[in-house]
């Protein structure tokens, strides 16, 4: 009896192997996203976009006949949880590439793991140090534009507005300090003085002290470098402290929470945003305008609302991995994980003039961000909507 059972099991196993080889293997992509915690309002859009992307690709026949499978884990906006998630995705789910993470602290925390395990990663977070220096970030790419691109666009707008002095208030973490570092480079180059810098923690709920310090320094403009709802708290505190000048926000604020919580108090706020935020106002002369509008149309059809810029970052991560995988599949089987991961990484680095939602990507061995200044669009807030400047 026992021998028969073993025999049957063996035959079943052999069949499974045979059929496994006959059917195309899944392309497994792991995604570690902040679905809960302080960054959850960013993460929810990212997950929606990834789910939609997976569905669209598979409906269109997968990636060259291979089914795309995106496994999403929640990081709870916590860097140490993000590291655990990435380990799990790589070792248990056999992810060929990872999309991680929503925030800069998380993305920085997972770099060591990814570099060691030799898995390509596309980060959805802002900080430049995620992909710089490129020599130490061999396996790491990112889709959101560098802070330098967005800050420089805002400083140029300040100059156009006649602003001579600026005060800065931002997170005391990688995102906020990244924005400050770029402001310190861009402002002097444009003849704008930084007269005060304040910082606060993501979970702070009372910023009156920092706000009154800023207002006492009396700058022509204030730049807030945060995400909602903390960025709303900061703007409210500054306005409550009687500030009359121009308030600039960062592109990290551009989701529905920002406008919903702020209401009419945001009128006149200026910020440089990604094309997807103003998809319906983009001039057709931009080479990526149709990619943006196509994405928004699909997203709206399924979810009923326009996507956030974070959803766009996630969509671009999908587009990039899809394009790279198509190139790799011609020569490498996804069954050989190490070879496939390495070839996938090389293919991403080789993408040039790639039109996506965040703009035109030109990756190179020295540039794992790939976005130029063409992707920043300057807008103002008016009655709960963005208006194109110029």
């Amino acid at each position: 009896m026992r021998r028969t059972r073993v025999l049957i099991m063996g035959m079943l196993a052999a069949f499974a192997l045979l059929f496994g080889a006959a059917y195309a293997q899944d392309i497994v992509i792991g995604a570690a996203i902040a679905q809960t915690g302080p960054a959850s309002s960013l993460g929810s859009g990212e997950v929606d976009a990834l789910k939609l992307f997976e569905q669209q690709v598979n409906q269109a026949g997968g990636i060259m006949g291979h089914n795309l499978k995106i496994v999403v884990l929640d990081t709870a906006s916590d860097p140490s949880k993000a590291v655990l998630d990435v380990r799990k995705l790589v070792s248990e789910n056999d992810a060929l590439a990872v999309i991680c993470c929503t925030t800069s602290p998380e993305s920085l925390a997972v770099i060591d793991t990814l570099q060691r395990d030799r898995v390509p990663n596309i980060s959805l977070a802002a900080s430049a140090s995620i992909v710089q220096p490129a020599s130490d970030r061999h396996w790491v790419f990112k889709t959101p534009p560098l802070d330098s691109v967005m800050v420089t666009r805002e400083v140029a707008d300040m100059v156009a507005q006649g602003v001579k002095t600026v005060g800065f208030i931002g997170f005391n973490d990688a995102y906020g300090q990244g924005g400050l570092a770029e402001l310190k480079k861009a402002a002097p180059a444009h003849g704008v003085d930084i007269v005060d810098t304040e910082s606060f923690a993501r979970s702070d709920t009372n910023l009156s002290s920092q706000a009154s310090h800023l207002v006492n320094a009396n700058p022509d403009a204030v730049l807030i470098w945060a995400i909602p709802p903390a960025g709303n708290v900061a703007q409210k505190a500054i306005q409550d402290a009687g500030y009359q000048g121009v308030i600039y926000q960062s592109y990290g604020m551009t989701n529905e929470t920002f406008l919903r919580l702020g209401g009419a108090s945001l009128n006149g706020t200026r910020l440089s945003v990604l094309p997807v935020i103003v998809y319906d106002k983009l001039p057709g002369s931009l080479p990526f305008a149709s990619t943006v509008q196509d994405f928004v149309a699909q997203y709206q059809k399924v979810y009923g609302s326009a996507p956030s810029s974070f959803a766009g970052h996630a969509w671009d991560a999908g587009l990039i991995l899809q394009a790279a995988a198509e190139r790799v599949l011609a020569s490498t089987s996804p069954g050989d994980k190490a070879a496939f991961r390495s070839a996938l990484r090389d293919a991403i680095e080789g993408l040039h003039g790639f039109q996506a939602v965040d703009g035109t990507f030109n990756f190179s061995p020295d540039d794992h961000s790939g976005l130029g200044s063409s992707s920043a669009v300057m807008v103002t807030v008016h009655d709960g909507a963005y208006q194109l400047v110029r």
Partner: protein
Amino acid sequence: MTIGTALFLLVNGLTNGAIYALLGLGIVLIYNVTRVINIAQGEFVMLGALTAVGLSTGRAAGGLTLAVLAGTAWALVALLGRRRWRWVWLPLAGGAGLWWLLGALPPWHLPPLPAALVAVAAVAFVGAALYRLTVQPVAGAGEVVFLIITTGLYLGLQGLGLLFWGPGSYSFPSVHAGNIHAGNVRVSYQSVLVLLATLLILALLWLFFERTLFGKALRAAAMNRAGARLVGISPSRAGLVAFAISAGLSAVAGVLIAPLTYATYDMGLSLGLKGFVGAVVGGLAGYPGAVLGGLAVGVLEAFAAYGTSAYGEAIVYGLIVPVLLLRVLAIRRRGVAP
């Protein structure tokens, strides 16, 4: 720093300090009566704020659902403790009925004040039920066991907050928007309300502890458990009331602070910790000490954030070290065994 700025920071610090004072009062009250250091104190703030928001905006009133759940569990435990198996269906049916009623009723849009009152009552009830369900069964356990229990409560309540209200941020309308201008100092009406409400609550608590038999019994239970028991004061009943009052105080803090900031499911921990720092600064024993400690923490936080925003939080939490050192030194000098 000008005088105007200093006054502004002072008022701002006192407003936040009043919130910490309410939390610190709750922590001290629970600690005195039951020897429990309640890590989950801040979660009552979150429950109070979000329940009030839910009741006034027609979102799922998770706080009431939690109260129904806790009440059902409480009744079950009470019945099973007396081995009355036959009546088990009663709380189950009652709980299910209330749950159905909550779901079936049209979404509530209560005005802010009734919403706040219902929220405070619901959270006070949840506090009492949590005492009955988690602390009372192990009443004789050491402080470390209580610490672990309340850490579990903190994690559980935060998880339920996420489940009921999701990860979003909600604003609660202030009773009267706008600012009072006194010279060049601005004070928002909500700040005045926070300070007045705190004063009122302190007065009520004083009356309760000094003028009512039950309040005196609570004080007796806090001073000497064994002695209180000998004169007929039930420690478990005292603990129940302490938890209910403490949770209610924190819910009041939550309702008061919600219009000043945004209410989120994870707002509790940092508020609870600052309340704890305030209570420790005040000596973790007396109620006036807890109030003064909370106010001191609020003012220190305001000035620290103004002076050096990067280290504002570190200074507040760091305060606990020198305070404890000073207390130890003071005890040594007086020759009392530490």
